């Protein structure tokens, strides 16, 4: 078995948002309930159905297109279902399948639901082809039961089921005592002082700040609690060089030394970390530029432009940062494109915002701690907030020769 994550609680709610059209509601609901029972029979988990409102695990059926899911299904056959890992909770079934129960015809909803719930609870695919968590559907089995590998996997996550663990109070205490971050000695950084390692506009529009072994989120109204980097992205070290999320591929790349890690959400992609071969190690920063859908990597006074899905000729890189990003300092701490469409560069205690011509806007640099981290104002110079549109911006949207040269340079690279 492979473990992808776990819920930090053992009493979970679920909600069935809709049901397949060709199976009776009663049969379908019974199949889904039985799917939960397979797991709660062998691990100290409980599942309670809710009819409305939020639920930890949400099951639904959708077809080739869904406004709520970016993973399309492919019609009858092939891909039957997919699910998110903990603690996301989405479980989706292909509406176009012929979902059945109690027959060898079609696809058995109970078995597929149990498989997808395995993912939702934190199990990856098993290499035992007879295991429930095997990636390929092995067909209807009238006397279906979990494979020992499935049982071992779920018990590795949540322990064995025993009468003692049924005690609600004890479990709650257990959950509360599970530390959100490992207790290894590590200096907890102060978000209001010092230099950032990396900044990233991540999936779902969340802004992450990285410093030392810790990461926290930043919003317009405040900042979130500090988590160890490895508590969110398992297998990822602290003290990162750079981080960048690409909405184009959904990939998050983290850079440190001569290695690169790739994650989709919080799951590391197979085969990573890899060695950085064709760009220099010890990068300073990285960002995704939505205008040309490229990833930019920065080190010292140079940058590399990388297309994640096409061959990139790096022989012409690194190029000088100042040729493309006018007014930006060298030796950056961090960089990102933000939800306002602007590019931001961070160095030391200051940050720079660039206009659409990639030229530093009037009034920058400004103070990171005050404007991004919501720390008390310490100097009278830092007065505007993050994303604040000031009148001075208007004066910077003029095209300049240097900016136009830079745009041309990008266009030529795209053509390549």
């Amino acid at each position, binding site marked *: 078995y*492979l473990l992808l994550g776990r819920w930090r609680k053992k009493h979970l709610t679920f909600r069935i948002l809709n049901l397949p059209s060709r199976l009776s509601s009663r049969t379908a609901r019974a199949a889904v309930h039985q799917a939960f029972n397979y797991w709660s029979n062998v691990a100290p988990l409980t599942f309670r159905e809710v009819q409305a409102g939020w639920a930890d695990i949400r099951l639904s059926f959708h077809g080739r297109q869904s406004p709520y899911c970016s993973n399309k299904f492919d019609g009858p056959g092939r891909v039957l279902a997919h699910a998110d890992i903990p603690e996301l909770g989405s479980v989706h079934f292909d509406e176009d399948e012929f979902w059945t129960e109690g027959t060898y015809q079609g696809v058995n909803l109970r078995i597929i639901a149990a498989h997808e719930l395995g993912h939702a609870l934190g199990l990856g695919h098993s290499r035992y082809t007879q295991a429930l968590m095997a990636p*390929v559907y092995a067909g209807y089995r009238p006397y279906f039961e979990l494979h020992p590998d499935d049982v071992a996997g779920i018990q590795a996550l949540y322990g064995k089921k025993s009468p003692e663990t049924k005690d609600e109070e004890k479990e709650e205490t257990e959950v509360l005592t599970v530390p959100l971050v490992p207790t290894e000695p590590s200096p907890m950084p102060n978000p209001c002082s010092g230099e950032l390692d990396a900044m990233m506009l991540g999936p779902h529009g969340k802004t992450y700040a990285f410093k030392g072994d810790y990461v926290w989120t930043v919003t317009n109204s405040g900042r979130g609690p500090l988590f160890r980097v490895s508590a969110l992205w398992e297998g990822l070290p602290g003290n990162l060089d750079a981080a960048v999320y690409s909405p184009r591929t959904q990939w998050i790349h983290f850079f440190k030394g001569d290695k690169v890690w790739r994650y989709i959400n919080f799951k590391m992609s197979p085969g990573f970390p890899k060695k950085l071969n064709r760009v220099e190690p010890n990068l300073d920063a990285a960002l995704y530029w939505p205008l040309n859908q490229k990833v930019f990597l920065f080190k010292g006074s140079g940058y590399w432009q990388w297309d994640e899905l096409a061959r990139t000729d790096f022989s012409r890189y690194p190029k000088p940062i100042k040729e493309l990003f006018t007014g930006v300092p060298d030796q950056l701490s961090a960089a990102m494109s933000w939800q306002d469409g602007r590019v931001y560069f961070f160095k030391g205690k200051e940050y720079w915002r660039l206009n659409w011509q990639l030229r530093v806007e009037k009034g920058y640099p400004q103070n990171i701690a005050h404007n991004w981290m919501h720390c008390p104002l310490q100097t009278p110079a830092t007065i505007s907030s993050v994303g604040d549109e000031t009148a001075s911006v208007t004066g910077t949207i003029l095209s300049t020769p240097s900016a136009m040269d830079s745009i041309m340079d990008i266009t030529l690279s795209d053509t390549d």
Partner: protein
Amino acid sequence: RALGPAEKKAAVDYLLQYGYLQKSLEGQDDFRPEDIMEALRVFQEASELPVSGQLDDATRAHMKQPRCGLEDPFNQKTLK
């Protein structure tokens, strides 16, 4: 019989979709034949098929079976 380009592409797409082949950071368009053979070997071993590294009938048939949409974690390291 010799496989057509569409069949080969479908196999590479499958290996890519389910994590047996990874796009390199350098963004190379084409996978080397040895990379595809290695991915096929891993897929065959994980699927309990004869391990040949070739896109044989059994392998192509297995790729057409209904399955879960999540990636597989298998590579030589995890299999070992």
